[in-house]
């Protein structure tokens, strides 16, 4: 009864995916969709539905990367459909200049560590995405490469340069902030 076994396997896989990745996937997709959690839920729902018909033998070992990849692609499709993304590929996407100004020089910063993710917003979208996948979603270099379609070497370079840029910005911020505000 291969079908029943397949169905049972698929059911287990979907349950596992829900338990382990539901929330993080919606968060990740919401980020791509500019904060639209409603559509992000739809995208994630579609990804789980696709999981039913995916090749379970291939997906099982790589479930996380597979789910993130499907959500990412679908979310980018949604953006393209809405004409909110005027680029045809990820290379172009990576060239997109940051929409955010470097965070201002507010003197009333309480704790720079709370602001580190605001500083992340000053990076390019490509850098932001790789950084978020690494530190918010705990993806390995290999998984990030699979999700974004970059090479592992590219991922390493992007992470390296974005962390370096962040450190520079933090140093600048530290120099500008009052003595009581420290990076914890």
């Amino acid at each position: 009864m291969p079908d029943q076994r397949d169905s049972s396997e698929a059911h287990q896989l979907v349950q596992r995916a829900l338990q382990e990745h539901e929330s993080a996937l919606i968060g990740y997709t919401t980020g791509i969709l500019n904060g639209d959690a409603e559509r992000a839920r739809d995208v994630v729902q579609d990804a789980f539905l696709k999981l039913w018909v995916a090749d379970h033998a291939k997906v099982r070992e790589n479930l996380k990367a597979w789910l993130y990849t499907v959500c990412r692609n679908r979310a980018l499709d949604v953006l393209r459909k809405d004409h909110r993304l005027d680029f045809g590929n990820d290379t172009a996407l990576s060239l997109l200049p940051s929409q955010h100004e470097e965070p201002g020089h507010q003197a009333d910063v309480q704790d720079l560590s709370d602001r580190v993710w605001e500083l992340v917003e000053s990076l390019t979208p490509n850098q932001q995405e790789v950084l978020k996948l690494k530190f918010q979603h705990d993806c390995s270099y290999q998984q990030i490469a699979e999700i974004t379609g970059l090479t592992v070497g590219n991922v390493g370079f992007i992470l390296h340069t974005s962390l370096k840029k962040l450190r520079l910005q933090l140093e600048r911020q530290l120099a500008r902030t009052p003595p009581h505000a420290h990076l914890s």
Partner: protein
Amino acid sequence: MNPSDSDNPLITRYALSDLSPDEHPVVQDWIESHPQLRDEVAEIQHLAETLRTTSPLHDLHLTSSQRRRVLQPPLQKPVSSPPRLKQSHHAKSHSFMGSILRIAALLTLSFAAYWLGTQSQYEQQPTTASTTPPPNETTPPKAPVEHRIPADLPPAPIAVDQSRAIVATLPEQPSPVAAPQPTLAAAPVAPLEDPPKNTFAQFPSFGLATAKANSPFINASKSPGDSMVVYPRRLRQPIAPATTQLEAKPLDPSASGTTQKESPARKKPELYIHSWRTEVAACPWDSNLRLLRVNIQLPADQEAVQIGDSDYPLEIAFDPNNVRQFRRLGTRHIPSKELRSAGTQVVWYEFQPNGSPANSHETGKHIATVRLPSARFTTQTVGPFDGSSLQVLDRGQDWRKAREDFRFETAMLGLGILLDGGLPGSKLNHQLLLEVAETTPSKDPEDSRARLVQALRQLATWTGR
């Protein structure tokens, strides 16, 4: 790259503990021998820790209806899902209503078992998918009945089963009678000699469905357009054979009824296409005619293919100024081999141009306009093209100079037409098709050409042409 350089991405990767077991000791040696690298690593680790600990928490969840839908197998998957079983147990818990329901269930099951028993003897083989249109006939094995496709019928189901059906039916027919085909059968023009019984099993399955081959031409000035329907679900990966689906069939209506009540009707998903292309070349079997092939690639990794059950119109409007008459010859669905590749829909037309196509080498004559309304390209560099169209030009190309895959598919198409009864008055025969098929000399990793050539040779031998 200088290993002691703090700008080396491997230092960051080391700090983030993502190095491979091979790289780790090498980088560790660098770091131990260069004190400045130790500080660098410490700073990176500090920042990484800050990023991790201050990472915004995600506490987002699917809605309850979305969660329910996700936990139910979508469409094709025949499943006796645990929630369904749970519901029936729950129903039994009510004592009075429970006993009534139990009796009703017993009666229903008995009837279903009886019905299954009576039906199963007529079933030749299990259906492949619940959403696939039911087979339009159940041919009793004894009579060679012709099953003609009406000219306006949408493309036939994935024709993977064709060869299987040929295997099942042809050897039982003594010559010289019409050989029945499953969906498009007609007698071959020339009487078949008794074929060796086992050789039909070697016939290739190319997934090509020819429309009624000797259907009349349509006058382009009277009715310039032809429309058909694209079913993206036919281009998805083959799902595991539905051996249990037949058993599950009688239970499906009630099961799907409950699911449909719970979930609102799905919106028709967008149809994305990777690319589309047309090609026109001379028709090998009739010098007065031209062949047009429309080729559309759809990514398999999209809702319309994987989950959707919708159809999308494909319109081909022939230019009456340059085309006298046309007819659709066949369609082909090539499912994607894996989720991240593309499936292909191919449509073939035969048309008679006004005037000579040889005069149009330079600029090309406008032959037709292909439209796939409401579809979108997957890449923004090309589209979106909502409502836009693909113009087909005929530059008078000879079939010998057409693309290799065009020639190969032409041979397949010709074979399909021959099996469908051939084209009276044309030069179409197995020898000609062999000539066409054998002009495709490049690599043939899937052995398709070899199988086609073998089939054509066998048919040529049996029919003597």
